């Protein structure tokens, strides 16, 4: 059994990992609530943006300009996809709309494999200035990049919650989540609201991609498929609650890393998102069945 001093180190690294899962998860839930689309290209969009940043830095462009390009690339690509395919797929079921975004995922993934093929020797990497300083916690150096990742998740969760609850655009997004057609008949500019949601989600994808490229690895498959952990967090929150998504993402990150020192479990820690999602869905499903039966009996 690992000691607390060992576990505390994994707790710190797990919090940082959970923070970046949370960023992606919250973006996914916001878009889903506004458009009903499960955006599986979230990771690929961020990865492509990160590679563009890498190329710009290699070409001696200023770092800040390269970071902005990454974030804007995410917003623009996602917006373009949403504006072209969103209306056409609006009437289709959730599965069809999700699979359509898988198409974008595979296109971007393929493009990255062609433009930035795997190398035998040289390694691509992005390093942010915030990597070079930080503080020590439980014997580990915590970089400001990790703090930003976790902090951004918290800020985003709070800000998005307030936005959806108290702003006109947020209210419109919530209304669309319930019924797009009725919302449209009430005079809400549906296309504009959807565009805002797509663009916002894309901006988050770009931001998450930049952070993940620094914190994890600048590698197409890693960044593209890392979204699966975020999807699990969103699913645990039933694609509705931003707060639950945030908490679930943190739990997934922490549990994943806390399993590392347990010899018998360490090779299975990559299953953490799926296992937790399945458990959550089973618990929710059972709870609902019990509630429904109680109501019927009453």
């Amino acid at each position, binding site marked *: 059994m*690992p000691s607390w001093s060992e576990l505390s*180190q*994994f707790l710190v*690294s797990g919090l*940082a*990992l959970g923070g970046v899962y949370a960023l992606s998860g919250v973006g996914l839930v916001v878009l*889903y609530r506004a458009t*009903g689309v*499960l955006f*599986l290209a979230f990771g690929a969009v961020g990865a492509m943006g990160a590679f563009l940043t890498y190329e710009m830095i290699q070409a001696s462009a200023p770092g800040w300009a390269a970071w902005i390009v990454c974030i804007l690339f995410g917003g623009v690509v996602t917006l373009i996809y949403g504006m072209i395919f969103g209306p056409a797929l609006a009437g289709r*079921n*959730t*599965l069809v709309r*999700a*699979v359509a975004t*898988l198409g974008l*995922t*595979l296109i971007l*993934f393929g493009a990255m*494999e062609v433009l930035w*093929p*795997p*190398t*035998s*020797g*040289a*390694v691509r*990497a992005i390093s942010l200035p915030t*990597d070079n300083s930080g503080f*020590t916690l439980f014997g*580990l*150096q915590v*970089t400001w990049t990790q703090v930003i990742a976790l902090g951004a998740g918290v800020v985003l969760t709070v800000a998005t919650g307030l936005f959806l609850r108290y702003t006109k655009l947020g209210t419109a997004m919530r209304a669309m989540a*319930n019924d797009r057609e009725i919302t449209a008949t009430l005079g809400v500019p549906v296309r504009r609201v959807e565009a805002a949601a797509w663009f916002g989600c894309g901006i988050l994808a770009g931001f998450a991609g930049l952070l993940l490229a620094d*914190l*994890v*690895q600048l*590698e*197409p*498959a*890693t960044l*593209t*498929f890392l979204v*699966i952990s975020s*999807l*699990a967090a969103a*699913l645990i929150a*039933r*694609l*509705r609650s931003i707060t639950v998504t945030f908490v679930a993402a943190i739990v997934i990150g922490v549990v*994943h*890393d806390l399993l*590392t*020192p347990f010899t018998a479990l*360490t*090779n299975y820690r990559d299953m953490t998102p*799926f296992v937790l*999602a399945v458990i959550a*869905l089973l618990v929710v499903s059972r709870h*609902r069945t019990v509630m429904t039966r109680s109501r019927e009996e009453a």
Partner: protein
Amino acid sequence: MNRFEHRRSRLAGAAVAVIAIGGVLAGCSSSSSSTSSTSTPASTSSSSAPAPTSGSASPTSTAVTTSSCGTKPGVAATGTPINLGSIVTDQTGTSFADIANMANAYFTCVNANGGINGHPIKYFIEKEQTNATQIASEAKQLVQSDHVVGIVGNTSIIECSVDHTYWEGLGYYIIDSGIAPECYSTSHSAAVNMGPRYSSDGAVQYALTQHPSKIVFDQANVPGTTYIAAGPNAIAAAAKVPITDMTATPPVADANSVAISLVDAAGKDGAVVLNFTPPDALAILGAAQKLNIEDNVKLWACSTPCNTDFLATTLGPKWNNKIFVNAELTPPDKTNTPTMNLYKAILKQYGSAVTGGIGSFSQMGFVEAELMVKALESVTGSYTVASVNAAIKGLTDVNTGMLCQQWSYGSYSSHIPNNEDYTVTADNGQMVIASNGGCTPISAVDPQIAAYRAEAGTAPLDPTST
């Protein structure tokens, strides 16, 4: 449908989508994505322009023209091509394409300078994604469609396991860079490198010279981990130093937790030995540096893939004399021999496809091509499967200029012709030979090494390599 049911239906749909699509994505990331041939016929164009001097990596290197790679400088080979083939792993997170690409660069150089008795070499490179069916199919394509008379430059995670009986049946003697056990333990495969097991042996052996209290050996979770770990475990056991084996799934997405677990397992007086491709090794070492735990162990060591200047440059001076890397080939940075200078010159003039530049992988490609050219030059008569492979098998005590020992093929049941090596360490952005890191035989405590030496003996040192 009421609102509750509507929401429930949407959630169920989303859940199905996530689970189904998760499976698809997971499949995409590991399955074969391309079976298209990437055959790269070597150029047969003439190159009569003055050849450049060697690369900038060695300030003391003398001017060497690439024309010395052939027998007729500046005269392009125009005869009937001699077809050769190669199969390399090239997939997300793991690419050995540089090895075949460097061999191709060498052949291009040979073709531009007389070829093999006037015959150009046509080199077919097949890329695979760790798919046995694909690999078997590519081997057949090379033989049946491309009519190759020799196989050189193979570097694949499982190709030796999949194809060795096929090659044996057809009488091909393969010159490769080995990874799978069958690359070393069979009669028709001889590698220029030591591969992950023996290179890890070397890394552990060097780590033991620093008297660590414990060894933690971490490697990529790919086929053959048990086979690879057997060598380091035997060497550590003989030294009575405890060893812990660990694995991490590539590409490593949680480098922080991997780095912490390694450091925790090794302890302050322990050593961590890594066996990963450069991107994953760099991710783990970089994570240790960011977490400021790189000094929480006595030393770090690594098998050959870490031997790139890029890694030393990226990690920075904090790792000077902190990381020790097994080098299966002569360290290129401060070596000023004719062969090393020719390698750098060929890389510079013909190696645009070699993404990693100077380093072990491109050196392996160079040596393999060099050996194949020596074999072809010894063929009298026509270039057939029988004549070419007899010549390959007959290669004996060859001075490659890149290995500690002379290299031989021979009629042995197993082949580990490279079993003596260097250890290098980071030194301000370069990899240089570490203290007491000169040519050192891999310990015969590893039973495979003992068996090979019993059959083939110990090869003499190569006087041209340093």
